[in-house]
């Protein structure tokens, strides 16, 4: 008999896709901003604003990433459905489970560890790492944005303060604005590499575990065979 198991709420799925699409948009636009890769030699009238639009897209998608990130932070602890923090504590037990899962991925020998409900701890650790990197991008990004930011167009008074704080913190941590810029650039690649691994693993699980893992992020359910 096949049982339907609820894995993601509507909000989680929306946030997942917002994060996925806006991270992708940030990466592509970020590559352009770092080193503009297409060139329009003879533009027509003065309606051309390639870099301006790309930067605007970068900022808007970055804001979406930040909103999704902050929502995840809340749900991480306070989700009524399934706080992710439960996949990380007790630390020793969960670390053992994550390690077993990692071994399974590499050897395919031992039986994969089971845990129900909740996401598996390895996934949860990956989730924490990728969100830590998103946090780094957020702070360094705000720090890099501060110099271009005019206080005149701030809607809320706390906004200039957040940008200023981000700049001070990121410069204090990494040494200079140039270093901040390099970290921001590199962390983007790391996030994309981790996201690629994540997508691969979900497809892999769908194929090898035949529980419909791809379905989870669209319908919210996976399907478990039971005797």
């Amino acid at each position, binding site marked *: 008999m096949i049982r339907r198991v609820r894995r993601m709420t509507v909000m989680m799925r929306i946030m997942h896709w917002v994060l996925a699409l806006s991270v992708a948009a940030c990466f592509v636009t970020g590559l352009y901003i770092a080193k*503009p890769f297409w060139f329009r030699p003879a533009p027509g009238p003065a309606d051309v604003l390639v870099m301006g639009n790309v930067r605007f897209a970068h900022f808007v998608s970055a804001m979406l990433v930040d909103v999704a990130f902050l929502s995840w932070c809340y749900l991480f602890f306070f989700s009524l459905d399934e706080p992710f923090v439960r996949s990380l504590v007790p630390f020793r037990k969960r670390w053992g489970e994550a390690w077993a899962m990692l071994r399974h991925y590499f050897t395919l020998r031992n039986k994969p560890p089971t845990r129900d409900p909740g996401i598996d701890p390895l996934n949860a650790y990956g989730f924490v790492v990728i969100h830590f990197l998103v946090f780094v991008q957020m702070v360094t990004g705000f720090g890099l944005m501060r110099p271009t930011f005019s206080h005149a167009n701030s809607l809320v008074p706390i906004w200039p303060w957040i940008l200023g704080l981000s700049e001070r913190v990121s410069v204090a941590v990494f040494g200079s604005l140039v270093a901040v810029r390099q970290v921001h650039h*590199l962390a983007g690649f790391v996030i994309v590499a981790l996201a*690629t691994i994540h997508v691969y693993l979900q497809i892999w699980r769908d194929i090898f575990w035949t529980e419909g893992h791809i379905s989870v992020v669209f319908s919210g359910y996976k399907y478990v065979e039971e005797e």
Partner: protein
Amino acid sequence: MPKCPHPRRAPSPPDVERRLDGLEARFQGRGHDLEELLASRGISRRSFLKWTSMMTAALWLPPSFERSVARAAAVATRVPVVWLHLQECTGCTESALRTAYPGISELILEYLSFDYHETIMAPAGEAAEKSLEDTVESHRGAYLCVMEGSIPTAMDGKFLRLGPKGETGLSLARRVAAGAKVVIAIGHCASYGGPQAAAPNPTGAKPVHEALGIQTIRIPGCPYNAVNLVGTVLHLLLTGEVPALVDGRPAWAYSKRIHDTCPRRAHFDAGEFVEQWGDEGARKGFCLYKVGCKGPYTWNNCNEMQWNQAASFPIRAGHGCIGCSEDAFWDDMAPLEKPLAEGAVAIPFLKGVEGSVDTVGWTLIGATAVGIAGHAVYSAARKGSKPGHDGEEGNHGA
């Protein structure tokens, strides 16, 4: 990089006038008379007043201060100045002295009352030393000390010895700074250490404020702009106070980013870039970002004040900014003619090996792809060799 400048109370006009009265009385007859200097160069009173308006606006003072700025400019050529050359190339001095048609800022700078200036002073040897001693003694607490160059601190500063007694730069700077009203660090070297402080920094070169542990007013740049020094001196004379600083630099000069006031900024936003030197984009004056302009990370007023009698400055002349007013620009902003995405970073776990940020990033993505492909093949092979493997699976996590 600057933090938000602190808003400061504007100086009160009567206080300023009283201060100038005092300074005029104290330094009467010293140095040069500005009116004579201007006349000798054929600069009209009208030009001088136009310059006064410019300086007043540049210093963020209200227009009513124009008269005081004119008086302060006249005092500026009389206040004793001790100018030390430390570990440096004298390019800062040269850039100010060698102007073919000095503007008023350059003129005032040239005729500051230098009681000690190793490049241009008339006395030599013991006489020069005596001049320095006399100034340090007789104008203690009143003279301005300008330091050009970083201070080597390795081996007790023995990398730099000056004068007939072979005094180390460290000791000389400490002695002169102790009696100065204010220490102004000129150029990148005195402000941030300069190329001599670039890794691995064999002489232990440090900027003045770090080597001596004092507060300095930093006027960075390679070389610095004469306007920024003269403006700072005027501000000191007018108010007796150090101007508002951001990151140690006068806010009035260094709180705007090159990128934001750049005459080529519209081309940046339009996505129009010089791809290589001399191409069509270069002839059309497109943005220099892709040939390594570091304007987005540099705070200075080159766009407004410009260089060489306000004739031009690097970006206008067709070369990107190299970030010469920023801390550690030799290390941070290299290679100077490539965008930062091609800037070198140390590759983790490979000591001493450098690659560009992009190379590191794309290698990471490539390695991930290779790993994934390997794992997929491995998984498929194992599944093919073990039919029915799926059946033993239980209920997994998400």
